[in-house]
């Protein structure tokens, strides 16, 4: 398959290793992965703040970059949520609808489309706490949220369970938001960081060496919080573990 690789702005700038792991992982499954050079962002920061008109040009650029691929894959749940569920600042032409419906978050792609059976190259002998970002949990439906009376399932747990040596730990409030929330993290920074302190402390008390997530934005916030209050915990994106990172 020909896949358009969408690397959101903050991953490009701060977590290139997440982009590299995503690219290599998709290539391991034999896909032709293309990184359109003119990509920037999906428009979510403006849209989430209510400024929908201000993201029209960014959304149009996104469509120009990602038209014509079999799938568009991104290692970021919240960006994919925006593209799929809220991307309406521009006219909804057949081309726009096509791009929106073909855009997948990495875990979904591996679990639902690729239906991966094994990651023979992956080994991660560590205790990890899984952080389902709110976008992946409640919008992309990666897993059953604890608020609903529904049979349990979890796509990231399914995938990580195929990694040799990996052990899960369970925090007391597994689904609690970590407080990132996009621009909320700066406009309500005190509440945001308090939520982050509580989140990383909860994982630490549960015995986690690593917090793993499909969203680097949550991890960037949590890492900043953990370092500030001195919680000795490490952070890693799920793409890195599935691609065989050992630490």
């Amino acid at each position, binding site marked *: 398959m020909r896949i358009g690789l969408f690397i959101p702005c903050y991953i*490009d700038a701060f977590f*290139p290793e997440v982009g590299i792991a995503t690219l290599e992982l998709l290539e391991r499954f034999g896909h032709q992965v293309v990184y359109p050079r003119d990509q920037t962002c999906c428009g979510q920061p403006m849209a989430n703040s209510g*400024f929908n008109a201000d993201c029209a040009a960014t959304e149009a650029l996104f469509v120009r970059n990602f038209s014509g691929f079999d799938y568009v894959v991104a290692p970021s749940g919240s960006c994919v949520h925006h593209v799929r569920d809220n991307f309406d600042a521009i006219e909804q032409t057949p081309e726009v609808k096509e791009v929106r419906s073909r855009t997948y978050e990495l875990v979904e792609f591996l679990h639902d489309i690729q239906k991966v059976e094994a990651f023979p190259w992956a080994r991660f002998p560590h205790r990890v706490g899984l952080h389902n970002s709110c976008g992946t949990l409640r919008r992309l439906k990666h897993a059953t949220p604890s608020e609903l*009376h529904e049979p349990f399932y979890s796509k990231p747990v399914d995938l990580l369970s195929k990694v040799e040596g990996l052990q899960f730990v369970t925090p007391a409030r597994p689904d609690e938001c970590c407080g990132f929330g996009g621009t*909320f993290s700066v406009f309500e920074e005190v509440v945001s960081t*308090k939520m982050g302190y509580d989140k990383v*402390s909860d994982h630490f008390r549960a015995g986690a060496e690593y917090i793993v997530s499909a969203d680097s934005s949550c991890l960037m916030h949590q890492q900043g919080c953990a*370092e500030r209050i001195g919680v000795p915990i490490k952070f890693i994106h799920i793409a890195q573990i599935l691609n065989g990172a050992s630490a």
Partner: protein
Amino acid sequence: MSTQDPMLHPELLSPAPNEGIMRDGRRLDHAEAASKPLRSRPEPQPRGAKVHGNRPIDQAEAAARFIAAPEHEKMHDERLWDLRQKRDREMHDMEEWEELRALASGIKEHTLTHLDEYLEQFEANAVANGVHVHWAKDATDHNRIVHGILADHGAKSLIKSKSMLTEECGFRPYMASVGIEVIETDLGERIQQLDNEDPSHVVVPAVHKLRTDVAEVFSRTIGTDPANSDVHYLAEAQREATRPLILAADAGMTGCNFAVAETGGVTVCTNEGNADLSANVPKLHIASIGIEKVIPRLEHLAVFVRLLSRSALGSPITQYTSHFRAPRQGGEMHFVLVDNGRSERLGLEEFWTSLKCIRCGACMNTCPVYRRSGGLSYGATYSGPIGLIIDPTFNARKYSNLPFASTLNGSCSNVCPVKINIHEQIYAWRRALVERHETPLAKRAAMKAAGELLSRPAAYRAAIAAADIALAHLPRFVIYNGLNAWGRHREVPHPPKQTFHSWYEANRGEKP
């Protein structure tokens, strides 16, 4: 790595954070009783948002002061999280939970789309039962009508049970201005009345107070020992102080949880039996009813009663579910049906389903922002997620910041027993407020600049290249105008050697 942040609560890293508050070997469970101070050093109760007329409420500022009071914040967060967990346990005990939510939502949507018919049916049946029915267009109308009824009876004192509608109407200040004494009979609401503070939660109005705060209020107002914060002592002292006022009151008032159209009766759910006292002790009973409280038939009540207390407090049912249908012999019963903006809200395409709300407070209990901010930080009658989507309908300018006091995590919508899409309405309110220009200029300018930068690849690359050089700081293009805000309580990300983009150019440079 920097030193311990002074904001960090010392118990944050304790091995057993959720052990709760124990007493005589048992966990204290009552919503308004289970708060003991964690340290001996007294911590003053943080107060709510600063209100300056019509100016936008600064929720973030008030929330920061709440968090700066770690004993209060920790107690509040754990207390409400405990309610959420109890709710989850009740939910798991009911196989038909999701079906019941869908049913409740459907009944409310049906009723709201036939509201005129059901209200008229309710009125006709109530009148046939011998109840006087009044229609109030707004808060002022409500207060005037109630005052008129009281004046007709020469009533000088009124006992009442908890009602968010009367809070919405500014009822107590109005009654004070016309010289009628109002006595709240709900314990939490009475605490708030004595402290001259608004309720901070729709179900547990004093949940933001430690029991030492209550001891302080009671010592000041009803003469208890300021050093004694034993919850039984405080509750008993309040009972002793209030009971004579209840027995001597000229009139009683209740709110209404459900108004049943086919019977013309109202149902009030309490845990203290105080609605029964308010309705049954004096001869005159007035019930204030928001027009969205009507449901078609008695059988529908079963659906809502099963959901209400499970969602609110995680208990199967409230201690008292009281039904009032007709005045007792020699007495009088009045229903005041209040609109106060509801008809207008019903006409808002994106927001009308907020009228389905049954005021259980589950969205507040689950909201990670609310639990850490305290209800008074919202500076409005309704706080937490439901407040974010209702308050702007009362005053879009004053409450223009509230829809931004959310991470859009969506937990509120999942716990809502009537399936209001709360987080989607929060998102929609942000758009609506931007369209009405009810957002700060600086934010508008920043978002416009961000939109322009992110839609021009060359300019964007240049910005990143500049950022690559000076990555010790978080570049503006990610956080826009928030450079300082990010780093105030949090470390900035570590700059990598190169961006993904430049890695790709170097390693997969050939054009696709």
